[in-house]
């Protein structure tokens, strides 16, 4: 093993972590927007139907098919092919990040909505009696309690997204799994390659579990 393998592994790790980071950050943003639409005065039964249809679509199909549709499928349509959108959609990193963001949004929405349903409704009624706007009610009353209750399940969702970044290797992104695929094909040592890959992912997930499940609950 020479030094260029280490370089490739570090580049692969960098791609994996940045893909997971983009997907999680923007996914959380969109989940927040969807939750705010459902739990405030912006609620509309047609928008609710739309959100439920979106979650049903995303949760019923495999992540790999979502990645393939966004990368191979959308590049065929002329809306994306000939306009300014092609500057973004031609890169596989953008397509994989978009697919993982949509996936994270749908699953996190279901998680958060489940805990928001278990918050006692009297708090919201009394806050409305006190005259708080629905924005303040959502940020100060509903969302902190939901975040505290959902934290363990949300860390599991985080780990699922880190594991789903390995599917981006089928889109020709050279992240960790893709680099190890190349290494296994070059040196005919699949056990060594995939064993190293597995150890890297094990330590990444171990770090995430120790950081988010053990240390952060101690701070708050």
């Amino acid at each position, binding site marked *: 093993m020479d030094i260029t393998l280490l370089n490739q592994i570090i580049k692969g790790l960098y791609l994996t972590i940045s893909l997971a980071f983009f997907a999680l950050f923007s996914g959380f943003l969109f989940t927040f927007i969807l939750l705010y639409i459902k739990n405030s005065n912006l609620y509309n039964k047609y928008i609710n139907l739309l959100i439920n249809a979106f979650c*049903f*679509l995303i*949760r*019923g*199909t*495999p*992540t*790999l*098919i*979502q990645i*393939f*549709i966004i990368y*191979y*499928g*959308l590049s*065929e*349509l002329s809306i994306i092919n000939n306009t300014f959108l092609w500057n973004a959609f031609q890169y596989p990193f953008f397509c994989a990040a978009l697919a993982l963001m949509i996936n994270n949004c749908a699953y996190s929405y279901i998680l958060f909505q489940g805990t928001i349903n278990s918050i006692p409704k009297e708090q919201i009624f009394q806050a409305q009696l006190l005259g708080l706007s629905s924005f303040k009610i959502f940020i100060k009353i509903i969302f902190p309690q939901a975040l505290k209750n959902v934290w363990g399940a949300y860390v599991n969702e985080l*780990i699922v997204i880190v*594991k*789903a*970044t*390995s*599917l981006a*290797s*089928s889109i020709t992104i050279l992240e960790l*799994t893709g680099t*190890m*695929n190349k290494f*296994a094909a070059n040196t*005919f*040592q*699949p*056990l060594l390659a*995939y*064993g190293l*890959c*597995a150890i890297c*992912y*094990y330590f990444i*997930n*171990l770090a995430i579990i120790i950081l988010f499940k053990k240390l952060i609950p101690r701070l708050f």
Partner: protein
Amino acid sequence: MIDNITIQYIGQILLASCNTLYITICSIFVGMVFAIIFSLAKYNLTPYINKISKFIINFIISIPELVVLFGFYFGTSFLLTKFYGTYTELNNVIAGIITLAIIFASYATEVLYAAYLKINKEQIDTAKLLGLSNFTIGYKIIFPQLIKYSLYGLSNLSLILLKDTALLSLIGVNETLASAKIAASATYSPFFFYSIAAGIYLCFSACAEYFINKINNKQKW
């Protein structure tokens, strides 16, 4: 746009979706066998089997499914070639079924243990007082209650298994995503055929969720 060739490709994709269903059902059966073995190993009373199997099962859970799949398929092919001298490999369908079963079993140990903890232990004490053999206690008292309490978790895991069969297309198994890929690259229309594959998976998971809701809530059929 929808002409004779497209209809033939759609027929090929539907035939391959039967293969997907077959792989899912086989994986669930093999996965249940592995799940019982794994949970007996993880919650064993002897200290070394306990800790080693807990470490191995946590290791398998934290690895992406793609890495488990490639590691198992190419790894067993490598070891068998070394052992036999000439190039030997596992059939890719069987390797896929075993990998999906291992992943299913690693998650199912927790579900089975939680279901086992819900059983009232006094029933087992009364049964021993009545003189029932260990086999009868396991078969008539523990096993039905285990199924009753673990059915919800196991049905969720089998839905995840259905969607993970899409990964097997990267191994070369002839299933829904693989034939959609063939159709898409032959006719240069990937959006249409990948959407059809997604629609087939959507139908499968919608039907499965409907039946699972019926069973779990015990509503009338």
